């Protein structure tokens, strides 16, 4: 009977959203600590580490994702207000935006088309089903927007969320190396590419490199969310993927 109080405690905690909410924040803080101890190497991406830690905890305790999400939804909910908040960095960059309007529009259209075409094209080539393809198509835009698009077109919003996060982590991990390979020097360009490809996670990474890179990443994330939301539905209907 020695473990009875512990069992009671577990039953109580497992039923309350508090436990998994706290653990989500706790794992993220641990992940940040590891990332900093590792010299902020992009390979130790804090989002990926936190997700790994939480999955390990869920498997070890036999907790279903739904139970986890009942607690973690409070964090997830903040994605909406965070998307609205992007208006502020956008407004702060209005002068640059005006000056670079043409290159930005060109890069934006190129990125939205490249993101959708590469995801759907490669996926279809290697035999992914239509639901998976629709879920892949908006993976370069920020999670709430991508999930909304995926749901509207007949994809699986929760799968899209996973693909969005993976794309974010990959861009954050691979971006700086690729830019070096392409001999890119302009922080505005690098930031814009990171934000357009890897949304919030790419933007978080860009802010670690320089404020200019971060601002342009935020700008690209906001613009590409908007343009993708407008262009992707007709585009997918046009290739006959979405109803």
């Amino acid at each position, binding site marked *: 009977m020695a473990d009875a109080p512990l069992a009671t405690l577990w039953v109580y905690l497992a039923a309350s959203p508090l436990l998994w909410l706290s653990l989500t924040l706790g794992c993220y803080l641990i992940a940040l600590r590891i990332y900093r101890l590792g010299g902020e190497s992009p390979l130790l991406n804090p989002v990926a580490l936190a997700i790994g830690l939480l999955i390990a905890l869920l498997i070890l305790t036999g907790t279903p994702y739904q139970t986890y999400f009942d607690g*973690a939804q409070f964090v997830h909910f903040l994605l909406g207000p965070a998307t609205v908040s*992007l208006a502020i960095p956008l407004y702060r960059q209005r002068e640059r935006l005006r000056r*670079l309007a043409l*290159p930005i529009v060109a890069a934006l259209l190129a990125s939205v088309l490249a993101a959708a075409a590469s995801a759907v094209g490669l996926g279809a080539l290697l035999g992914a089903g239509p639901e998976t393809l629709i879920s892949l198509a908006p993976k370069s835009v920020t999670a709430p927007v991508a999930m909304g698009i995926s749901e509207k077109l007949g994809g699986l919003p929760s*799968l899209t969320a996973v693909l969005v996060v*993976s794309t974010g982590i990959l861009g954050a991990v691979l971006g700086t190396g690729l830019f070096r390979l392409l001999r890119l020097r302009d922080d505005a360009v690098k930031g814009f590419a990171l934000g357009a490809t890897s949304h919030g996670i790419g933007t978080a990474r860009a802010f670690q490199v320089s404020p200019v890179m971060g601002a342009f990443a935020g700008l690209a994330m*906001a613009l590409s969310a908007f343009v993708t939301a407008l262009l992707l539905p007709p585009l997918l209907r046009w290739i006959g993927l979405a109803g």
Partner: protein
Amino acid sequence: MLEALTLILACQLIGEVSVLFTGLPVPGPVLGMLLLLAWLFARGGVPESVARTADTLLSHLSLLFVPAGVGVLVHWERIRGQWAAIAAALVLGTLVTLAVTALTMTAANRLLGRSGGGERG
């Protein structure tokens, strides 16, 4: 802080409701962002409290993606069944998008003879 949070939530709410009624293809929070942007332009500046609240939300942006990412558990079977297609779309797709975006913007800048204002050695 409270006023700023209310303003941000109100923008999102109006965005979500407008999408619901008009059937616009844009998700509610994106419309909310445009509303807030229009408000900032109309006002001609960002109030201190709004800036602080927005910066707080955005400074922990990566954390907000964690709950959705853990959802990989639910889709494990589908991902394992189509892993090659999904892995290629993710890794190559990300590299292609990064390169195409950066190179297009560099080419457009060069064509127009201007730099991004963020030159670094």
